């Protein structure tokens, strides 16, 4: 296909040009790929983009913390290791075969690592078992699409942004409003208008503490509507009936983190 050929040509030309670049220094921690958080996420995605043959990519911070992923054909198949302190937050992601559904969580892991771990170094190793890569995994395109969505949440407090990011990929439609400004909308366009209206209405409800609501039954396409407000941030979601309970639980953890998790 034309797009693939031009992409391959561009990569080939970049590879040719790279031969004339200064050799990148490789130290004990590996090859430095980013000095600042702003560049780190793009650098991580670039490493994935350049990994076609099966490799374990290990991203290491100066402090020794690391994220290790199993990559082939420019796709992430597994998260192999993360910092110990992050086990609770990213437990569902570690050691399991990834698919597009984990795109948001995976991107959040990279963003969090980039934020806390600059400068970042990378090294690549052959995996223990060189089995043929499967057809699953999270593609680079999926990661870049999610990154675009998550950057829209960058104005929110980090814990809220991280929690919301994992929620958004499992919704039929979503809308987030902060200080009257629409930060993010996604999904079914017909529902986006409804959710903007819900955000506006819910934000007028004055509550002493964050409140998370759900309404189910009788809505189009058998969706449930969820809404939550905390401070000047209001979020409204439309989710399938099958996903509404887990979505409600995630929303409560995002907006009322001290309330405990079901």
């Amino acid at each position, binding site marked *: 296909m034309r797009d693939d050929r031009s992409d391959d040509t561009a990569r080939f030309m970049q590879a040719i040009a790279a031969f004339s670049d200064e050799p990148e220094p490789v130290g004990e921690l590996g090859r430095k790929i980013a000095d600042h958080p702003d560049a780190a996420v793009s650098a991580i995605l670039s490493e994935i983009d350049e990994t076609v043959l099966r490799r374990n990519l290990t991203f290491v911070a100066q402090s020794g913390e690391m994220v290790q992923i199993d990559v082939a054909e420019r796709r992430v198949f597994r998260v192999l290791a993360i910092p110990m302190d992050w086990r609770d937050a990213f437990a569902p992601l570690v050691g399991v075969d990834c698919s597009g559904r984990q795109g948001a969580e995976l991107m959040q892991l990279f963003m969090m690592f980039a934020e806390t771990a600059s400068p970042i170094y990378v090294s690549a190793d052959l995996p223990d078992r060189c089995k043929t890569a499967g057809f699953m995994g999270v593609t680079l395109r999926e990661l870049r699409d999610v990154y675009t969505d998550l950057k829209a949440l960058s104005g929110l407090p980090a814990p809220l942004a991280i929690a919301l990011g994992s929620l958004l990929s499992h919704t039929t439609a979503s809308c987030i409003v902060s200080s009257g400004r629409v930060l993010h909308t996604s999904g079914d366009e017909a529902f986006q208008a409804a959710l903007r209206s819900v955000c506006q209405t819910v934000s007028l409800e004055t509550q002493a503490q964050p409140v998370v609501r759900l309404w189910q039954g*009788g809505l189009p396409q058998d969706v449930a509507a969820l809404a939550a407000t905390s401070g000047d941030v209001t979020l409204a979601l439309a989710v399938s009936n099958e996903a509404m309970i887990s979505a409600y639980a995630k929303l409560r953890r995002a907006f*009322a983190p001290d309330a405990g998790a079901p």
Partner: protein
Amino acid sequence: MRDVTIGEELTGLRGSLPGCEVVAFADLSTGMVLASSTSSRHAQEKLDALCDAGRDALSGPLAQDVSRAFGIDDAVVFQMAFLGDERGIMCFVRARRPAEEALCFVLSPDAPLEGLQCLAVAMLSRLASEA
């Protein structure tokens, strides 16, 4: 064998839901609590307030605004509503229309919600058939 009372049925339902502190069977049209089961003593005023919260959550002004936002003009559309904050979660499940009864739950903040709707709908159907 004697028949099981509604109160005993509600107690059985509450026992099958981890973290459930209150189950009330209420008539939303009159705002009256018809029967209840609680893990600790609750004044009737609190149970009445729970019923009012259920009417508001399922069909009050905010619920009506939400349903209108989705293009639904019918003021009474929602079968279930949740309202949760750091103190806990209130869940309301109404019977199939034209019945006006509903089950109102108060759960602890970390109570799992899976299965609640199925159990509630089954009990409402049973209570309606016995009426």
